[in-house]
């Protein structure tokens, strides 16, 4: 989690890092751990292929794994992971680090790719430019939700979950299973599945609240 704390300036304005780099060569010489958010920023603003390759190196094998857990064969998953990263490249200019962590944004692209290819359906979703969309009523509340900071806290907090809770989250997010599916598969009563997941989420949120207070 080093990368979250070093170079925090970068995620506000990735370009600023470049300017600093030129003015203070010692920074560029240091082994920089650049955040995924910053890398996406370079891809978006400068079509930076090196930045993209670094994102690929981290995310593609994980997307492949995610797709296989969701039912894809190894070959299929490899191909779909490549397509997902191509979509990341393609849509990078729509990415806004103030609105979402890189992993959040990339997850949604991978998820939609999985639904499209494995469930053979187009996911009905809200569209930001829809004239019928009811606009956000609490713009300040949105600022922290789903951003890099929250993602970082969650990554750490997930490690502290009891195995029986973590397992259920993995089945929900990775194995394409509803709570009912999970109950049927594990023979755990549906009520227990729901309450364990609820406990897991509360625990994760609790960590959020503690960190927020500490700030």
């Amino acid at each position: 989690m080093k990368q979250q704390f070093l170079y925090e300036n970068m995620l506000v304005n990735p370009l600023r890092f470049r300017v600093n780099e030129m003015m203070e060569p010692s920074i560029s010489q240091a082994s920089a751990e650049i955040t995924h958010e910053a890398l996406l920023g370079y891809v978006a603003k400068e079509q930076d292929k090196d930045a993209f390759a670094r994102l690929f190196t981290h995310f593609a094998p994980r997307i492949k794994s995610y797709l296989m857990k969701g039912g894809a064969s190894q070959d299929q998953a490899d191909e779909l992971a490549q397509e997902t990263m191509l979509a990341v490249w393609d849509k990078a200019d729509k990415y806004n680090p103030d609105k979402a962590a890189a992993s959040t944004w990339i997850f949604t692209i991978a998820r939609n790719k999985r639904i499209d290819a494995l469930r053979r359906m187009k996911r009905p979703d809200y569209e930001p430019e829809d004239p019928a969309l009811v606009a956000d009523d609490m713009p300040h509340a949105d600022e922290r939700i789903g951003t890099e900071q929250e993602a970082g806290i969650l990554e750490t907090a997930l490690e502290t979950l009891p195995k029986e809770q973590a397992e259920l989250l993995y089945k929900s997010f990775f194995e394409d299973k509803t709570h009912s599916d999970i109950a049927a598969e594990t023979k755990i009563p549906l009520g227990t599945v729901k309450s364990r997941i609820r406990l897991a989420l509360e625990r994760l949120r609790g960590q959020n609240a503690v960190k927020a207070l500490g700030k």
Partner: protein
Amino acid sequence: MSTDLTQHEMKDKMQTQYETMLMEYAAGVLDEAQSLVMGAHASLSPYARRMLKKYECLGGAMLSAHCEPISMKKDALDCVMAQLDQKRAETKDEQTSAQPCHFEGVSLPSCLKDYLDQPSWQNIYPGMAIQNIETSCLKSKARLLKVDPGVKTPEHSHRGVEMTLMLDGAFHDESGTYSRGDLIIVDEDYTHQPIADERTGCICLVVTTAPIKLTGWKRLFNPFLK
């Protein structure tokens, strides 16, 4: 059965059901009909969008830090790098913006646009009409439901889950008043008889996962079964 639970317990149950389905929608595990309701609901509810964002953030955290990587094929990166320039060139002109969806004078969430053509209401009960919505689902059924002002839904219960998204007007039942954007999710424990607003009536999007059955003497007449 609904009398076994107090009002408070009922609301709590509905809230849990609601949060469960938000999470399932964020995880991408709902079927097409249920996803349609959630997507339309999210268009009308900033709260739902915030919740979805939280769940997607969780999904991203799991993907990035808790999903053991499986090596890509040796030439995968090269293969993708080779396509980057072409990709940019291809999609430069593909700027599509959301198409507004108008139906019967009501502005609807754009995700419904592909599912609704011309109005073609079928009367199923005095003061109530439905318009079927085609999806690829085998277990879930989606329909628009239009209820005339002041009309009370016949007493009915349902196996499985019933999702009702208010699109226009309002209705009220024992648990409160609901209007545009509100999503009510009930399961088989809940017997309800919503009454459409006396002035405006209502239009809603309803998805059920099992045939609704009527309770009480109106059981002989079961218009929801199709």
